[in-house]
């Protein structure tokens, strides 16, 4: 019976209106409501369901960031994870943190914890990278089942139904493996009050990237952040010929 690592990222809540900082270095995060990345919620739900089916033994929730991310880990514990790991990253390192650094951390943790599965959300709603799962698998040389809309464990193998552009693709991969959760994989549960109480007693271990031998230096530098251009009003036309003429006139065709 196995151990699963689940990644949970603290992001700005999906319902919040995002504002760009006046100096265009990023978005305003101070005092803004944050919550668990929705795809991470789906990943946690899948891991907890596997544990309830007794297919895996232990679910460990992992998050990287400053002290505030422990709230996100606690939410994962309240959903049913057994324990948490908080990898402390703050200041400039945190601002520059991206999929490459995270995947290195997860790869190191997977070896340390002897995990058989890593389940992540397919992407985070703040950077929309969609890279961490793939990179983690590559660093570990593990098979990957990304964009999972259905996961079935069959002995030492995992059957994954993936959502792809053309429809659904079913693959069978061997464990240990990395899975990334897509929207239709499941419907995350609400944290129940008794589980919130139980989460209080569950342990969250603290460590730094250096403890895992991970170098947080980023090769990517954000030069500038801008709001998307305001949507201009459209123009109604009467006929198809008018439409073609207008498109020609503004250089679209």
């Amino acid at each position, binding site marked *: 019976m196995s151990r699963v690592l689940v990644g949970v990222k603290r992001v700005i809540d999906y319902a919040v209106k995002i504002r760009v900082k006046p100096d265009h270095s990023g978005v305003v995060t101070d005092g803004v409501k944050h*919550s668990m990345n929705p795809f991470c919620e789906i990943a946690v739900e899948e891991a907890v369901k596997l544990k309830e089916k007794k297919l895996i033994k232990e679910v460990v929730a992992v998050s990287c960031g400053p002290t505030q991310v422990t709230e996100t880990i606690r939410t994962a514990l309240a959903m049913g994870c057994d324990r948490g790991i908080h990898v402390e990253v703050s200041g400039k390192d945190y601002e520059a943190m991206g999929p490459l650094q995270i995947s290195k951390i997860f790869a190191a943790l997977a070896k340390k914890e002897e995990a058989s599965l890593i389940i992540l959300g397919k992407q985070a709603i703040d950077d929309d990278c969609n890279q961490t799962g793939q990179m983690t698998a590559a660093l570990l040389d593990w098979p990957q089942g990304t964009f999972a809309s259905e996961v079935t464990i069959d002995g030492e193998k995992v059957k994954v139904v993936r959502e792809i552009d053309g429809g659904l693709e079913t693959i069978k991969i061997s464990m240990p493996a990395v899975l990334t959760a897509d929207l239709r994989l499941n419907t995350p549960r*609400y944290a*129940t*009050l*008794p589980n*919130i*109480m139980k989460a209080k007693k569950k342990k969250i271990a603290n460590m730094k990237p250096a403890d895992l031998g991970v170098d947080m230096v980023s090769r990517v530098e954000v030069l500038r952040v801008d709001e998307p251009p305001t949507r201009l009003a459209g123009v109604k036309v009467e006929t198809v010929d008018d439409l073609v003429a207008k498109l020609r006139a503004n250089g679209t065709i």
Partner: protein
Amino acid sequence: MNNIAALFKARKALGLCVSGCRSLSSLAELPEMHQMMRQTCRDYADRELGPIAGKLDKEHLFPGQQVRELGAMGVMAVEVPEELGGAGMDYLAYSLAVEEISRGCGSTGCVVSVNNSLYIGPILKFGTQKQKEQWITPFTTGEKVGCFALSEPGNGSDAGAASTLARQEGEEWVLNGTKAWITNSWDASATVIFATTDKSLKHKGISAFLVPMPHPGLSLGKKEDKLGIRATSTANLILEDCRIPLGNMLGPRGSGFKIAMQTLDSGRIGIASQALGIAQAALDCAADYAHKRTAFGNPIGKLQAIQFKLADMAVAVESARLLTWKAAMLKDAKKPFTKEAAMAKLAASEAATFCGHQSIQVLGGMGYVTDMPAERHYRDARITEIYEGTSEIQRLVIAGQLLKEYAP
């Protein structure tokens, strides 16, 4: 020495928490567990209750599925210990839960509050272990809800004048009489009911009983057609030689009035929380509209008339909320909380009716139609000034406590 004694007496007179209860600084930031609990209830209310609240109200539908889901989350039995099937949390957590649920749907908040405070509350406090297992545990999951039958057609505020009678016949109690305005009646599987066992002892001759529903000898009157909280059922309970085992008496004989009053004390915090949720929903609606609706060339939120209304609404809600939290924290610290609970219920219910009213005013014509929820908040708010002790009774309770503190 005299100065210190006088200072202490003065502090007590001002009702300040002397020691032991959570300090006021924690009112500003709740403990982490409470924040998480509040968030999960808010998420549930936003996603599952908000979208259907209008339909539940229009069609008078009891939110059975939602009650079961809330039961699974532990919200139907917040204070009940885990061994009995509850969430094992404190009254502050319960108050937060009711407020968030009521913000999504005032009726559902009412069902949660009645089940927790009025039905489970007295059994938890006065029941035997066997009674707790029989009458509480099945009511923690949301599969069954309970109700509380004190009021009668002849007496509401005048609770000491209960005319429902209970006489002993062998190994049974036989109940006769009518109870009025019973919330949850048509959806309940049991009731805590009050009847006179010794008429000569006046209010000291009232006892509390547990009656399953349905039960021979207990029938329900017609469902009242109410102004608000229409997803809850309200009806008379009619008892005609309703027979129950002797073991169904709750607490000692003659302690019914005391049980009722103590239950209502706590219940007040629940209703205050429900009123807060409704008030907050009304404020949310108005503030959102103020950003979107334009008049005289700008969003109406730029007009001082609207700003003053929103500010007044926010102050009313926030001050009532702090009163409610204080009452809950005093109760959790096992300190006297009767006065604070009455103040909370009074302030919160008046805040709810005020916010409901002003919210419609901010929305103008849109506030008067069912397309927007403002009219439903206005109607839902109104009952909070009436049930579980009218605003007038609350004032009497508060004055009574105050005068005791200032007694020479």
